[in-house]
């Protein structure tokens, strides 16, 4: 019997010919990536009576990026920054990124993630790395302490669900709509404990940034991994990397066998898909946009590991071009990295957004995590970020709707949730 992508990676990293779902393995971990939780990995050891992390298995395969709190919003975060810098010295880290804010997942896909690897991150959206054919998954700090020390960790080999995308990517449809539709139909427990493989003719046509959007949301679908195969687009994206080239050159991408076993195969025809919106307060509370069109909004956001990329910002700029954001609505756009920022700036996208009355804030997680742009009781927000949990953006009495960048941008202009297919606001092309 053939194997799925994750089965092959688990087998390879456990030194086994084959593995089967449900089997427990002690697998080699190829890479560990941490953001500010690096501090908690250290303190988890301290609280358990150790002086710190006993050992770091490979300093060239451990990367720490200060990103969640750049710039720090309060004294506690600033203090944590100080402690992080001390720890980076203490452990003599070779890859410690202190002053290049952004969203971890974007930064590490630009610089560190390697196809075919099993890599652990200190953040639930580490599944995003699956876009690059890397089996990335989030872990808590206790397990990362173990993985860093031994370079291995226990895993239960997951089953795999195959999601096949067919049809065309229409301008009003984004990978976000696919993720929302899946959660709406199959719930956020859809892929619980399982790996998802995204494949099919429409996946082959997806840009890398569209793939980031979908792989990020594997965790909102309950998934342990969210994997794409390696192709020319992956190669092209990675060819721009300027550091750790040798590790990249030794990459061994993995594809599934034709006779691999899947617990489910779900085929989605994009031609039949309407823009989707998740209502408060869960990712699975999904309806087609026309069912919520007209709901007043106070704030509109585009950003995060899922939607803070060049193409997302471009979609927003194209829709805003020559128009004005509704006077009673605040629109914030947050790029996912400084590389994205530079490119958006170079293309004039920020000017378009500012001209329309939108605002741009420096790269990072702030909007998505509710560190900036918090909501008051009774306020309503529509956001192309990752989560709409109660209380995620300030007040627990605020309503958060999730949608694609196109739906968010049209809604920002209209001041109410708007259907990007029928919105009356004229959308012109960016010059």
């Amino acid at each position, binding site marked *: 019997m053939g194997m799925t992508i994750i089965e092959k990676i688990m087998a390879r990293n456990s030194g086994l010919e084959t593995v089967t779902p449900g089997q427990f393995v002690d697998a080699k971990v190829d890479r560990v990536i941490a953001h500010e939780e690096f501090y908690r990995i250290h303190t988890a050891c301290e609280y358990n009576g150790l002086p710190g992390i006993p050992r770091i298995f490979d300093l060239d395969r451990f990367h720490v990026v200060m990103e969640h709190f750049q710039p720090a919003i309060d004294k506690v975060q600033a203090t*944590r920054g100080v402690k992080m810098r001390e720890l980076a010295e203490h452990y003599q880290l070779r890859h410690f990124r202190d002053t290049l804010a952004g969203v971890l997942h974007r930064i590490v896909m630009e610089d560190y993630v390697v196809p075919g690897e099993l890599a652990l991150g200190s953040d639930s959206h580490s599944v995003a790395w699956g876009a690059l054919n890397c089996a990335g998954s989030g872990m*808590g700090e206790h*397990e990362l302490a173990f993985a860093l*020390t031994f370079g291995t960790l226990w895993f239960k080999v997951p089953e795999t669900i195959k999601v096949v995308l067919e049809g065309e990517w229409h301008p009003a449809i984004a990978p976000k709509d696919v993720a929302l539709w899946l959660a709406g139909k199959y719930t956020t427990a859809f892929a619980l404990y399982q790996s998802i493989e995204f494949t099919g003719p429409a996946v082959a046509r997806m840009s890398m940034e569209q793939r980031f959007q979908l792989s990020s949301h594997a965790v909102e679908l309950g998934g342990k991994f969210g994997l794409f195969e390696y192709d020319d687009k992956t190669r092209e994206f990675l060819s721009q990397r300027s550091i750790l080239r040798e590790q990249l050159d030794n990459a061994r991408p993995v594809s599934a066998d034709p006779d691999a076993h899947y617990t489910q195969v779900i085929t989605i025809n994009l031609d039949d898909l309407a823009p989707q919106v998740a209502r408060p307060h869960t990712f699975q509370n999904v309806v087609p946009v026309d069912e919520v069109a007209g709901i007043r909004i106070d704030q509109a956001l585009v950003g995060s590991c899922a939607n803070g990329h060049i193409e997302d910002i471009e979609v927003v700029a194209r829709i805003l071009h020559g128009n004005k954001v509704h006077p009673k609505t605040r629109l914030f756009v947050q790029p996912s990295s400084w590389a994205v920022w530079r490119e958006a700036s170079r293309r004039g996208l920020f000017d378009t957004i500012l001209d329309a009355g939108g605002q741009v804030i420096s790269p990072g997680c702030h909007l998505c995590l*509710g560190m900036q742009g918090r909501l008051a009781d009774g306020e309503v927000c529509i956001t192309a970020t990752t989560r709409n949990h109660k209380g995620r953006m300030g007040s627990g009495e605020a309503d958060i709707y999730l949608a694609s960048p196109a739906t968010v941008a049209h809604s920002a202009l209209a001041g109410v949730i708007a259907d990007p297919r029928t919105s009356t606001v004229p959308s012109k092309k960016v010059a």
Partner: protein
Amino acid sequence: MNAPTRILRGRVWKFGDNIDTDIIAPADVISFGLGDANEQNMVKQAAFRDVREKFYEKVQPGDILVAGRNFGLGSHREPANKVLVSLGFSAVIAESIARLFFRNSVAIGFHAFSVPGIEVFVQEGETLEIDMQAWRVRNLDQGTDLKLDPYSELVQTIIESGGIIEVMKQRIASGLVPAE
């Protein structure tokens, strides 16, 4: 190490489906803080505040949290696991538990069980007995039983050792230091 507790008894608090880590440990109080006693106290006071006011005043040591599907979904944050301990809970039983939340529970040595059917099996305020020898849950008010899937050997070892860092310490102490 003490002999592991194989029987837990506690009063039940019930929650529905999709209780996410933003509800359990709101972002503004962890705000990637220092993980110290001050933070732990703040998290404890804020835990579940958007669905139950002042929950920390109500939970008694040993109580059991019962929830619906996909308990603990969302952010990776471990304070959401630790706060169940600091609130006094002895275990969580849910229809299903999010992957990362389950792993983190095991990693800190806290009992977390997925038991389909638990929602209709018990009402809030009733007392449950979790028996990890007979592998069953008993509703002591109703006198009814429900099967419990045994932990895998590995998971059981980690939990009974008091978490994965204890396992790591044992490995190091026994000379199983990783090869350079």
